Structures are given as structure tokens and as C-alpha cells.
């Protein structure tokens, strides 16, 4: 009964925190509204007309051909878009007078080196609006003897049909039938497994951090002294885990609902063959619940050893370190989420809540693997709760000793 009181108190306190409300509900709602606004603006008749009628604006650029390769310009390049200068000084002058926006220098040894110099006022390495394709096309066109058809063929040598034998064996049709980097046509589908993993990481770390902050905060303001005299520490811990767990789950649900709604509102051009793996959602819930319980238990336990909120960061690293390793490897495995290392991490209990969910999003995990991973994670949760119970004792809760790994080891041996 007292556990329920703790649960209620923790949940209500959490739901009153502006920071939590903004993160759990504010961000999804705002993101949804922004998406809806963008969609509305895009779908407006005027916007559509503008998009249809506005011609692509090309900047006027120059070139200096020291290799003597460029005899004529391809017909598809509008006249006056690419101006030849006999020497670089003239091109530089034209650039300074803003008659051109940039110029190219084709070095005399271009055939041997393949180096082309692009003189541009902005060196922005992230720029996507450069039009160097015009010069590439011009060089190719002239190298192949001013044969536009051959230049086209070289630029785009195959009309490719990809046959993914693994997908066919799994009964899937098309590269974008399931989330994963095989889908080159849609970057969102391509990166979906990684995004799901990042989302899980954020929710699990933030959710379990609530536990350590709650316990250490109560230790710091001495509230724990009153609580310890009126409730069994284990009931206190269970109440906290359940209360803050429900709060985290609410936030999780809000984000998932917002993501689903965003997909409907934004109406992205998803390929017709695309479908989210059917078992993803039930397994995601299982791994979320088990993963949260694992990390929340450990954080609550370690929180009992931390005398104040200030020291929680150091202590959190001990618990979160292994998950961070799985997270980092998951980030770098977007090309091959089903390799040997990822398979191992997705079965290993402390990393499985992230890496198994990442792999499940691709829909290419053999059925026995999530079952085994969930069983191992369940066993780890049992062990974590036993460890947490050992740490969550009155003499630790009432101690004001600064946290150190030595204290942790001593408490575990206690």
C-alpha cells in the first residue's frame, strides 16, 4: 500500500515538472504542429503553382582552360551560363566585379591528374547548391569528342534493376520494402533503424536518470531520513521505479503517437511496397519495459550511494557506460545492422534494448534471436533488482559518504 503512495507521489511530482512536460509532450506536439504547418503550406494551390512554374536559376560562372580540352559547350547548358576566360586574371577580375559568381581552372596536366580548381567566394564544405555539374558535363562532353549521346551514356551507364536475393527469400519485394540502408530512394526509411535506436537511447537514459536524481535529491534534502523511518526501502524503490517508469512510458507513448501522426500528416512519399515489420511494436514494448527496469533498478541502487545530486553524473557513467558502447556501435552499423558484432550486442543483455530493437526495425532478425535476447535481458533484470535491493538499504540511504567505485564495491560485498 505504501508502495502505491510512493508511486502516486513520484508520478504526480514528475507530471508537474515543466522540464519533463516539455520533453515528453511539448516537443512531440510542437514538432507535429510544425510538420502540419509545413504540409499545409506545401499543399496550398499557390505554392504548387510556384513550384511548377519557377525555372531553375543558374548562376553565371567562368572557366580558364589551361589544358586546351574544351572546344565547345554542350547544348543543354544555357548560353551565357559558362564563360571562357583566356587567363585567370580576367576571370578573377570578373569575379570581383560580380559578373560571374565563381570560376574553374582546368590545369594543363588535367588529363593526368584529374584535378579541377573551383574558385568560389564561399568555401562552405556543406554547400549543396553548387553547380559544378555544369563543368563536369562540359569536360566529359569534350573528352568524348563532343558526342552528347555518348556523354549521356558515360554519365549514366546502366538502367539498373537490383535483385536482392535475401529479400526475395524473406518474401519481400523491393529495396524499400523494409527499413534499412538498402533503400536509397528514401533517406528516412534508410535511417529508420538507427533513428529508432537513438530514440530508445534518449528515452532509456532520461527515464532511468530520473531514478538516480530522485533518490540522491531526497538524500540531499534529508527527506530520505523521514521516508526510511516510515517505509521499507524495497517498497520505496519499487514505488519509485513504477511511478517514474509510468511517467517515462507516457512520454514514450507520446513520442510514438507523434511519430505515427507525423507520418500521416506529412504524407511522405513512401514507396508502396514499404511496410514496418509487424513484430516490431510488440517487441519494442517488451525491450523497452525490460530495458527500463534494468537501468532504472541499477540507477536507483546506485542513487542510494550518492550523497547529493551533484555527484550523480559520475555514478551514472558506471551504469550507462555499457549502453553507451552499444549505442556508439549501433550508430556506426547503419550499413550492416546484422553483422556478427551487432548480432552479439543485440543478444547481450545490457545492450540488447538498443541494438536488438535497431535490428528488429530492419525486419531481418531470425525469430529465435529476440526470444533469446528477451530471456537473457529478463535474467539480467532479475539480477539487477537483486543488486539494487542490496544497495537500497537504510544504512546506505542515510549515509553521507561521497560516492566512489570503492564505496560501490564495498556496498555490493556488504
Amino acid at each position, binding site marked *: 500500500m505504501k508502495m502505491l503512495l510512493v508511486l502516486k507521489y513520484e508520478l504526480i511530482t514528475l507530471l508537474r515538472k515543466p522540464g519533463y512536460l516539455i520533453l515528453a509532450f511539448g516537443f512531440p506536439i510542437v514538432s507535429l504542429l510544425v510538420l502540419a504547418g509545413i504540409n499545409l503550406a506545401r499543399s496550398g494551390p499557390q505554392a504548387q503553382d510556384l513550384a511548377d512554374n519557377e525555372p531553375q536559376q543558374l548562376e553565371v560562372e567562368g572557366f580558364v582552360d589551361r589544358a586546351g580540352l574544351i572546344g565547345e559547350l554542350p547544348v543543354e547548358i544555357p548560353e551565357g551560363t559558362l564563360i571562357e576566360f583566356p587567363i585567370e586574371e580576367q576571370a*578573377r577580375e570578373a*569575379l*570581383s566585379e560580380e559578373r560571374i559568381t565563381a570560376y574553374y581552372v582546368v590545369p594543363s596536366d*588535367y*588529363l*593526368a*591528374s*584529374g*584535378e*579541377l*580548381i*573551383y*574558385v*568560389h*567566394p*564561399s*568555401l*562552405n*564544405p*556543406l*554547400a549543396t547548391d553548387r553547380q*559544378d555539374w555544369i563543368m*563536369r558535363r562540359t*569536360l*566529359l562532353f569534350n*573528352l*568524348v*569528342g563532343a558526342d552528347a549521346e*555518348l556523354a549521356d*551514356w*558515360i554519365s549514366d*551507364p*546502366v*538502367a*539498373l*534493376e*537490383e*535483385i*536482392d*536475393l*535475401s529479400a526475395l527469400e524473406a518474401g519481400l519485394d523491393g529495396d524499400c520494402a523494409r527499413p534499412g*540502408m*538498402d533503400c536509397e530512394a528514401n533517406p528516412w526509411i534508410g535511417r529508420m533503424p538507427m533513428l529508432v535506436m537513438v530514440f530508445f537511447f534518449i528515452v532509456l537514459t532520461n527515464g532511468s536518470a530520473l531514478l538516480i536524481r530522485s533518490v540522491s*535529491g531526497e538524500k*540531499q534534502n534529508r527527506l530520505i531520513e523521514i521516508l526510511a523511518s516510515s517505509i521499507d526501502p524495497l517498497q520505496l524503490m519499487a514505488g519509485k521505479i513504477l511511478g517514474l517508469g509510468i511517467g517515462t512510458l507516457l512520454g514514450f507513448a507520446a513520442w510514438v503517437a507523434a511519430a505515427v501522426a507525423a507520418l500521416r500528416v506529412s504524407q511522405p512519399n513512401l514507396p508502396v511496397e514499404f511496410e514496418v515489420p509487424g513484430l516490431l511494436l510488440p517487441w519494442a514494448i517488451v525491450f523497452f519495459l525490460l530495458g527500463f527496469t534494468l537501468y532504472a533498478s541499477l540507477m536507483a541502487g546506485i542513487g542510494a550511494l550518492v550523497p*547529493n*545530486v*551533484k555527484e550523480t553524473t559520475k555514478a551514472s557513467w558506471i551504469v550507462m557506460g555499457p549502453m*553507451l*558502447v552499444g549505442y*556508439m*556501435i549501433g*550508430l*556506426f*552499423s547503419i*550499413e*550492416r545492422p546484422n*553483422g*556478427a*558484432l551487432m548480432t552479439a550486442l543485440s543478444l547481450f543483455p545490457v545492450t540488447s534494448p538498443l541494438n536488438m530493437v535497431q535490428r528488429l526495425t530492419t525486419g531481418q532478425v531470425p525469430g529465435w534471436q529476440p526470444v533469446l535476447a528477451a530471456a537473457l535481458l529478463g535474467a539480467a533484470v532479475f539480477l539487477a533488482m537483486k543488486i539494487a535491493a542490496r544497495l537500497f538499504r537504510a544504512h546506505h540511504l542515510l549515509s553521507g559518504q561521497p560516492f566512489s567505485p570503492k564505496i560501490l564495491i564495498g556496498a555490493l560485498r556488504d
Partner: protein
Amino acid sequence: MNKVRLVAFEEIRRAVFRKSFIFVLLSMPLFIAMLVVPGIIMESLSRNDLPIGYVDLSGVLEAPRPFPIEESDHQIEILAFPSRVEASAALEGGGIQAYYVLQADYAESRGAELVFHEQPSSEATRSFYDFLQLNLLDHLPEEVAWRAADRIRITIRNPDGTRLFPASAPPLGSVLPIILGLAVGGLLITGAGSLMSGLVDEKSNRTIEVLTTSISSSRMITGKLLGIVTVSLIQLAFWILIGIAAIWLAGSIFGVEWFKDPIIDWASLIAVLAVALPSFVFASAVMFALGATIVDAQEGQAIGPMLFMVLIIPIYALLAIANDPHGGLAISLSLLPLTSILTIGIRSMLTVVPTWQILASMFIQIACALVAIWLAGKAYRLGMLRYGQRLRLGEILGRRGAKART
């Protein structure tokens, strides 16, 4: 002066002569290693050097021209198969990573199939395309055909010729000022944060009462700032040494091209440091003042992230700065306290930041630091013995009518 030295030494002793300082020193290198090492491991694990096959039903590759000799070492091996059956057997047997089938009407339709279990590596795809393009141009001299088939390597240069780098990625030497700016920014947050929490601790454990009776507030602040700057410089020097070792390892031992023989732009690095040092003192003095005004350490925890948000404003404005490194936004952010560190780092990669702007920025940072130290002194004098009471800005500035809030 003696007391200033004592306070500074005490700050250094408290920070440096303890075991956890080793962790502090190693935290940044370990964090970077944690970001980079999994990437390298995954890259090496996912590397696929198996040959790529093809079946030519069209006859365009009947007597294929091989890659130029000087290029053949960089290419994935390409194997011809007489039919789909042989190619499929090789794929299933793990002899090739994928195979292309050029359709019988390829010359007209360009139709081709790519058959695989796992998408072939980008190197394999590129090698096959280069090979195909080279052979579609077999009527041209090898040098011309290869140049048409191979990608153009574009080097971007600014109009005055002071900066140039490959369009694919800027070289290591160009990004070093940004890395230095980020390192100093990280030190600034941790150093200034620890200064503030140290002061709050001294208030809460009443050490401050003893200190107040034996040292003036101005000496106290000077000593603490000197101490924290020294500790941070020790950390920075250590990180630079680790960075040099990492660059040498990556370039000379592991042969990573990007790390080989970096051309270091010392002027840009000095410019970043020249602006960063007074910024550091400014931020520390501000945090010291806040430490004197707040009631407990928990209140101060939100200030670190806020400082971080201000520091990384140039990252948010990266595109605007990169598009116009001499524009109003770039110059303003170069002059403002805190944002100047990264802005000058980013601009140094793209252009030569005018000396007057660096000097102006330095003077602004120094002026701000002096004002912050003055404010910190006032806040310290007023707040050091006030427990449980928050100081208001009006009180610090000595405005009439400003009252303490409990």
C-alpha cells in the same frame, strides 16, 4: 600577492593532486576515442574486398580493356562469367560479393541487373562502373578514356588564394582551429563550473567564513581565477600532446591519408587561443559571481548547459558563417564573448580573419572579463555570508531600493 599565490595554489592542488584528475585528463581523449574507435572497427569489419562479377549478354565487354596499370591497385577485382549460372554459383559459394548482368539489348536500353545477397561495397560498385565506362570508350586513347571514366577531383579555392581544400572534405590542418575551439569550450564549461561549485561548497561548509577574515575579496577572486586557468592550461597541454600522438599514430602507423603530414596554420591557432583565454577568464568570473549569488549547487547545475548553448551558437550558424565568412553575422559572433572562440575557429578554416577583428575581439573579451571580475567581487562581498538568501542583480549593482529575496 602572497595570499593570491596561496589561493591559486590551493585551487590547483585541489584540482590536480587527486586521483580523479587522471580521469579528468583522460575524459576528452577517451570520449573522442569512443566516438572514433567503433567507427574504425565497424569500417574494417564491413570492408569487403571480394571480387565483383559480371555476365555480358550484350557483347560490349567482349574483349575488355583492363584498368590502367597505375590504377589497378586501387580497384576491386572484376571477374567475367559466361552465364548467370556460373555467376550465381560464385555468389552462393562466397567467391564474389555480387554480379552484374548486362542485358542483350544493353547498347540500346542500358538495361542491367545487379544480383546480391548484401549490397556490394561502394568500392566494388565504383570499380565496376569505372571498368564499364572505360570499355564504352575503348575507341579513345587510354588516358582520355580513363579521365572521362574516373571522377573529377575538385579543389575549392577562395578568390584570394589563401584557403584551398578538396571539395570532398577539408584537410586536418584546416579543421584544427575548430577542434582547438571545441577543446577550449569544453574546458571553459568544466573549469568555470567547478569554480562555481567549489565556491558554493565553501559557502555551505562555512570555509568561507574563515577565508573572509583573512583575505580580501579581490585577492580571493584573482587567486581562484589564476588557479582555474592554470589547471585548464595543464589539461589543454595534455590534450594537445595526446592529440599529436593520435595524429602521428593514425598518419604514420595506420596510414590514414587524412592524418598524414598536416599543414598547420599556426596563425589561426594562435588567433583562437588569443580570444579563448580572456573568454575563459570572463566565463569563470561570471560563474564565480553566480556561485556567490545562488543558494545551493543544484541551482547552479542548469547554468553549465546554458553556457554550452551560448558557446555552440556558431555551430547552429555554421551554414550562414560558411556562406559568408566576412558577413555581418560572422563578424558579430567573432566579437561577442563566448561565441567568438568557435566563430573564429570556423572562419579560419574558410578564410583569413582580419587581424583587426581578432584584436577587437580580444579587447572586447578582456573588457568583459574585467567587468565580470568587478561584478564577481561585488557579488562575493555581498553574498559570502548570506546563507539561504539569493542575491539580486540590483543589489550587486548597488541600485537603491533593491532588496534581498529570501
